[in-house]
């Protein structure tokens, strides 16, 4: 009898969920809202600013080409390469060396942001980096300098009929 | 960074008492004892490893092995084998880990298995065997554990084994 009672309880629990809202997040139509503008780091205080760790943004006018990010990434995922941009001659970057990031390798740990002492490299909310070939995943410094336009409005809401993305 | 916190200054009484007992019991086989809060490292001669292990098992109720690690010291031409033993049975000693360390020559790293004293040591000894080439005499199944069956190189955790590509 206990067996049947428990089985009935299980069926009741399952049936109850026919009237609950679906949690599914329908990705291409809905996009998640993130807190803040992406992960940033304050080298003076030594503390980061909370945010999503997505695609990087590189401030070309601040980058000195010190290749600290390259040194850091060498031991993690080897995604960052320093490349030379002769046409970009910024006064603080004499050799005009800039990081170039291979998103096929990047693990988005953000330690390159932590190590940068000039606030030149931050991370942003954008995470939709897809392409048909590997070459397109290689982001040159100019591409990294573009501010991404990510707009997400959905987050988990808690209602009477369960949780949903809204 | 350099300032020493207060825990270092006060002598860990309990650990000191246990260490003294060990020193008395094992006598001249003990080469040295390092004491830190909650950690004791006993360095012994490798001939008397069974005696020391038996003592730990029976007197201190160290009923399981947490880890068996091998550290390669090519400069001294020795391999150090470290057993970390802990206890579940004695509640007052649960935070205590006693390390049993001995050094064996690097060319002929032969030692005795402790599987009859601590059955939980089986896979740790197998791993140490394949990673550092330490041979545990009397182990029932000293085979490859993680490495491929056809591995025919130096034991990989020895210092003279270089990671490919480095």
């Amino acid at each position, binding site marked *: 009898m206990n067996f049947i009672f428990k089985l009935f309880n299980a069926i009741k629990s*399952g049936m109850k*969920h026919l009237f609950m809202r679906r949690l599914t997040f*329908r990705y291409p139509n809905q996009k998640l809202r993130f807190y803040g503008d992406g992960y940033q780091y304050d080298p003076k205080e030594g503390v980061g600013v909370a945010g999503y760790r997505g695609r990087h943004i590189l401030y070309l006018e601040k980058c000195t080409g010190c290749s600290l990010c390259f040194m850091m990434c060498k031991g993690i995922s080897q995604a960052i390469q320093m490349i030379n941009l002769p046409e970009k001659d910024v006064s603080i970057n004499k050799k005009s060396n800039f990081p170039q990031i291979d998103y096929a390798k990047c693990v988005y740990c953000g330690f390159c942001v932590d190590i940068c002492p000039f606030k030149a490299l931050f991370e942003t909310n954008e995470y939709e980096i897809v392409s048909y070939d590997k070459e397109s995943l290689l982001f040159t410094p100019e591409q990294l300098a573009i501010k991404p336009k990510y707009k997400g409005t959905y987050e988990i809401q808690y209602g009477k009929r369960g949780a949903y993305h809204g | 960074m350099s300032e020493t916190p207060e825990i270092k200054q006060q002598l860990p009484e309990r650990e000191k008492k246990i260490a003294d007992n060990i020193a008395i019991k094992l006598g001249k086989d003990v080469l040295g004892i390092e004491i830190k809060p909650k950690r004791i490292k006993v360095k012994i001669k490798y001939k008397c490893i069974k005696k020391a292990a038996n003592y730990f098992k029976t007197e201190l109720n160290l009923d399981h092995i947490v880890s068996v690690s091998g550290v390669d010291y090519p400069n001294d031409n020795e391999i150090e084998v470290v057993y970390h033993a802990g206890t579940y049975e004695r509640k007052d000693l649960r935070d205590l880990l006693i390390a049993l360390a001995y050094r064996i020559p690097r060319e002929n790293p032969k030692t005795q298995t402790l599987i009859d004293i601590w059955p939980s040591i089986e896979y740790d000894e197998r791993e140490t065997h394949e990673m550092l080439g330490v041979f545990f005499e009397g182990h029932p199944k000293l085979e490859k554990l993680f490495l491929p069956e056809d591995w025919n190189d130096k034991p990989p955790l020895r210092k003279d084994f270089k990671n490919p590509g480095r």
Partner: protein
Amino acid sequence: MSEIRTFPDFLKRLIIVLGGLLFLAIIIFGVLIYTVPAISNFNNILLESFSNPIVMLNYLDSLGVGINSLFFKIVIFPGYTWAALIAAEIIWFERKFLGKMQMRVGPLYAGLIGGILQPLADVVKLLSKEMISPGRSDKLIFYSIPLLINAIGAALLVVLPVSEGWLIMRSDVSILIVFAVIGFAPISVLLAGWASNSKFPFIGGLRGLHQMIAFEIPMLMAALSVVLLSGSLDLVNIVQAQSSIWFIVLMPIGAIVFFIALLAELERIPFDIPEAESEIVVGYITEYSSMAFGNIQLGTYIRFYALSGIFTTLFLGGWYGPQFLPARFEIINQIEWFTLKTLLVMVIIIILRGVNPRFRIDLLLRFGWSRLLVLAILNLFIAIMILQMGWFPFLGGI
């Protein structure tokens, strides 16, 4: 032709190939239409029948494949095509329903309404796959099993009375035919496991054999009590005996026994032990790929429909609607009532799949032989008692 590198390239290639095929088809068809008179005749009728369906029907009747012919009944309705359509859509419904129960959406993109064309997409996918068989398998048996499983499901449809007048074949012993056909299922499962010449399928085949044999006997006993009450082996007569009161009301235990045995016969969760995927991969289906796998799935779901229909026939009053309903429900005719009830049984089976884990084979066999058989015999006694006490004078038939 150029190399395909990007998605637009692929689309271009697709259009070229499809366009070429279409062009060829038009040319060939055009040539044929004016050369072969029979086809041109058919073509005229085809054109006419667009405006007047009766012309079409008459033409089909003249060919012997009209709506009242045996051919139509076997092939279209209530035969194979109908069952396959229900099977395909019940697969879709099952996924959608379980999706809702699990707080997700299920199939979404194929078709306009909630991915209703998903089964079709799956078939297309399976058709485009390569058919592989294990090296030392018995090829003849290996490839005949999908057809056999399909045939077992389809053979049950022959005697399934969807309505009083509209059924493929009426036999005096149709319930025996049903059990004779069901008896083939364990053999097909065992053969599939054996012919694959692989360990997991073989274990799955043996499990299937054990399970199906263990549950066939309680199933037969439960059906026997129905036969006793209705006094006939004919499924049509059995349904007619339930015109005033359904047998599920008279013999709830029998209905439960039959239902549980049904679950085991169908290998549905909680009794999908021969296909237990985390234990023995997928059991006897493991080595099947492509449309061979698709055929097994189709056959299983057709059997699912057919056996649910038989449960409806035996216990839920077949094509009769509930008596207490007001008169306006009379317009729902017999076939619709039957389909509705069958679908209800299927939905209940799907609900059980959503909330239950899998049983273990030894527990299941013990349950089948010791509990279910006892209950079935008890139910038989109840049936005899009902008959002897004469509470329901219309029962007992003869």
